């Protein structure tokens, strides 16, 4: 797994390199847009971390040149510019995700994993049922069963559980869960997602059944088959 990091700030660049290498990724670095674009076009990367503001060639210019050249490598844009127009511009130019600086490393790692996995799973055949342990979800009839007991869920709870089940085994951050279920791009910054998770948990893990939803401290939540 190779990741290209295009970032002009040395502290951040080294920090990202170290953190990603610890996770077992191979990391290539570029400190300006020109070098970054050259590496991105020549090399074979699973993901590119692209800073929005770069010397020599702007982040957005790198992205559009890359896409025009037919490279579909997933790009995660890192930016200190948190405004509607910047985000829309970034995603319109072909960015796959947008993370605002300063970000939590856990959040970045979770999103990198999701992006790499998404790229790999696009060719996979979509199944109409999801299953984790004895929890079954029928995507067509929108019915959820724990063993033989049907669980009634509200639409948003259904979406939340579906996202957790689709990414079972992966740690999912609160903001990622929020974006997936509500489809608005911002961090609610409150414990509201925890409250939603607590409610979902009550419905899924009733009567002392085996817990399926795990809280990962400082990171988020994970759906697990065996504990």
């Amino acid at each position, binding site marked *: 797994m190779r990741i290209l990091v295009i970032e002009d700030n040395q*502290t951040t660049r080294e*920090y990202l390199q*170290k953190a990603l290498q610890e996770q077992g990724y191979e990391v290539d670095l570029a400190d300006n847009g020109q070098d970054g674009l050259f590496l991105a076009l020549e090399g074979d990367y699973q993901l590119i971390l692209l800073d929005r503001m770069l010397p020599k060639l702007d982040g957005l210019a790198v992205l559009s040149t890359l896409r025009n050249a037919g490279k579909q490598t997933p790009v995660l844009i890192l930016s200190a510019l948190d*405004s509607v127009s910047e985000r829309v511009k970034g995603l319109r130019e072909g960015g796959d995700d947008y993370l605002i600086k*300063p970000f939590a490393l*856990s959040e970045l790692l979770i999103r990198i994993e999701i992006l790499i996995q998404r790229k790999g799973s696009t060719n996979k055949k979509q199944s109409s049922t999801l299953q984790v342990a004895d929890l079954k979800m029928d995507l067509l009839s929108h019915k959820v069963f724990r063993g033989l007991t049907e669980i009634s869920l509200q639409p*948003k709870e259904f979406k939340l559980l579906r996202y957790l089940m689709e990414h079972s085994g992966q740690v999912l951050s609160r903001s990622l869960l929020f974006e997936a279920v509500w489809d608005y791009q911002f961090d609610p910054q409150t414990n509201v997602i925890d*409250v939603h998770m607590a409610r979902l948990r009550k419905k899924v893990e009733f009567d002392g059944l085996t817990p399926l939803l795990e809280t990962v401290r*400082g990171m988020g939540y994970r759906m697990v088959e065996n504990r």
Partner: protein
Amino acid sequence: MAWVTEWWKTASKASSVWRLTRLYTGLLLAVVAVLLVVLYQLSIGQMSRQQVLQMDSLIAQQKQLSEQLSGNEFIEQFQIQSSSSRQYILTYQYKTSEQSQLVGRLSVIPKNLSFCPKLTRFAIWLDRYDEIRLISGCAQPLADGLLIVAIDDEYLYELKAQFISASVIALLLALLLGLITGFIFSMKVLKRINSFNQTALKVESGQLSARVEVSRNNDEYDHMALHINTMLSQLEHSFETIAGITDAIAHDLRTPLSHLRQQIESEIHNKLKQNLPTEQLENMLVKLDEILFTFSAMLELTRLQQQKEQTSQYFKMIELQQVITDAIDLVEPLAEEKQQTVQLIHSETTMINGDATLLFRAVYNLLENASKYAGEKAHIEIRLTETGFIISDNGPGISDEEKEKVFQRLYRIEKSRQVSGFGLGLTLVKAIIQLHNGQIQLLDNNPGLSVHIKF
């Protein structure tokens, strides 16, 4: 009658235009009335006074004659006098042994004739005009009979009648003129004052770049406008400087703080690997995130307030109801924890050209605030209207003076300080609403707070 008094009450309380117009018209009418009275006294009044004086002297003369002359001598001189007097119609009634005799122009004494100097009007046939005319006369008892003096003053009456109708017309014209010119002048003044008012309102709503219109007249209003504009420019400049400083601080501190965040995060990683406790570091991280969040929110606010055009190019048509339903879905478990009810009332499909995420944040912020501050078991209602929406709760509400302040950056109501927050929520909501060319207003819900949003 009731509506007249009602109208008067409201009219007298109404705008200064009406008051100025009334004052002006009143003065104009008074001047015209005084002029008319003076004119009357100098013309018709003078004439009738003259007439009364002449009549009085005639009566006095005849009275004296009747006392000096014997009965027959008096009658003789009276006959000459009455036939020679062109102006006066004179008649003398005296008694012989059997009956009363009349000498002079009248062939009969009119009934109900009053004694001089009070005049009575009566009709006679006048040969001179060959018609019946109304004349004024009175009776004066003399030594041996009754003197009747009358004067043909119909022309004076006609003159009086004409003067009165002319006066009425003059007064009506003055009233009309007064109302029209008064209204026009007052409207001009009011228009100027209104332009001041509108600018003040704009500034109040946060549009510091608003300026008062300056005309070319270079009058007192223009001087005032220039002073106010200068004051506003200085204020705007100061505000920009202050906002710029806070933003610069937030921006400059963000980089070292994010590096600090990275270091703490790496340290947590290291400790976790060695199975060491990380709680203290995690608490530091939470505090640091709060600071970073506040800085980001402040910077975002400035961008929302300043980069209106850049942001609005990315606007799309959005169904407001969908955004609101999503926000309710998010806030609902928070309300449930406090046993609050959240109800959506909608009959309208309101489409808005805007940014869904920003609008969602505004609605969610307002709902979260309602849930936070309305208290246990409160009822929160969100009502879609034709042009926006209204969020009301039946909690304790907020006082009028605080309704203004809650929109200020970093302002927090004293009693809400124990509830977590940064004092940026409502400021952000207002910035988002204004970005969408909307208005936000806080009103009393009796009890509770009602937030009105109009696009």
